[in-house]
């Protein structure tokens, strides 16, 4: 485990990834149970969401069962995508720990992480619009600027994937250098 010297960035990353993984597993299980409860429980707790009426006044709109199930399902999908991303990152990290990070399979893994991040960014973009379909006039916090950071991170990861592809080629060259 030469990459995991005490106090190294790698060792901190490993701890962070492990903690995040298990927290995410717990959260996903809770969300899945919540979806199940929202589907089967005869009575649900009263919930409401702020919305604007026709006159522009602020009102509280009751969150019905379909809306609650929809919101929780979107959250479950979000958690599932995050789980896939973190699982892939942990597999990449294992190759780093083994001292051989530029393996060809890591190229595909990084591209998968990029696609996962793109899916999360798309979900973040779509969720408020979907909610507005079911709760017309739903009040959302307005962003002054469109959120570009998630999309930028997608580009960064795809660039890294290309770097790893070149790294894998150099690794192969080094293997075949006698």
């Amino acid at each position: 485990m030469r990459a995991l010297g005490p106090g190294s960035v790698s060792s901190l990353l490993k701890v962070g990834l492990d903690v995040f993984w298990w927290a995410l597993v717990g959260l996903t299980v809770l969300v899945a149970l919540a979806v199940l409860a929202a589907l089967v429980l005869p009575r649900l707790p009263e919930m409401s969401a702020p919305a604007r009426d026709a006159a522009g006044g602020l009102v509280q709109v009751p969150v019905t069962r379909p809306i609650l199930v929809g919101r929780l399902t979107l959250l479950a999908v979000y958690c599932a995508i995050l789980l896939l991303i973190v699982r892939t990152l942990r597999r990449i990290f294992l190759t780093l720990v083994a001292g051989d990070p530029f393996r060809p399979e890591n190229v595909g893994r990084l591209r998968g992480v990029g696609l996962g991040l793109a899916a999360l960014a798309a979900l973040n973009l779509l969720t408020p619009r979907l909610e507005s379909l079911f709760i017309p006039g739903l009040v959302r916090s307005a962003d002054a600027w469109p959120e570009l950071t998630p999309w930028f991170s997608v580009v960064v990861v795809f660039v890294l994937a290309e770097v790893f592809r070149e790294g894998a080629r150099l690794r192969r060259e080094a293997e075949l250098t006698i």
Partner: protein
Amino acid sequence: MPIRIQLDRVLLQRRMSLTELADRVGVTLANLSILKTGKARAIRFSTLDALCRELDCQPGDILVFEPGPPETDED
């Protein structure tokens, strides 16, 4: 690959096995096999030096250039 390895010919002339050469040169048998079969992408000068020393030959006895289309990199 335009560079052809004639290691087996030199080994035959010196009546030496690949295993014995691997032991003398300090390169694994697997790597020497890769070299012998022409699958190697590069050879270090230190390896070439050791091979020529043990086989008592010149680099040109082991490496031969045959003009042909250059090899494309695998993606």
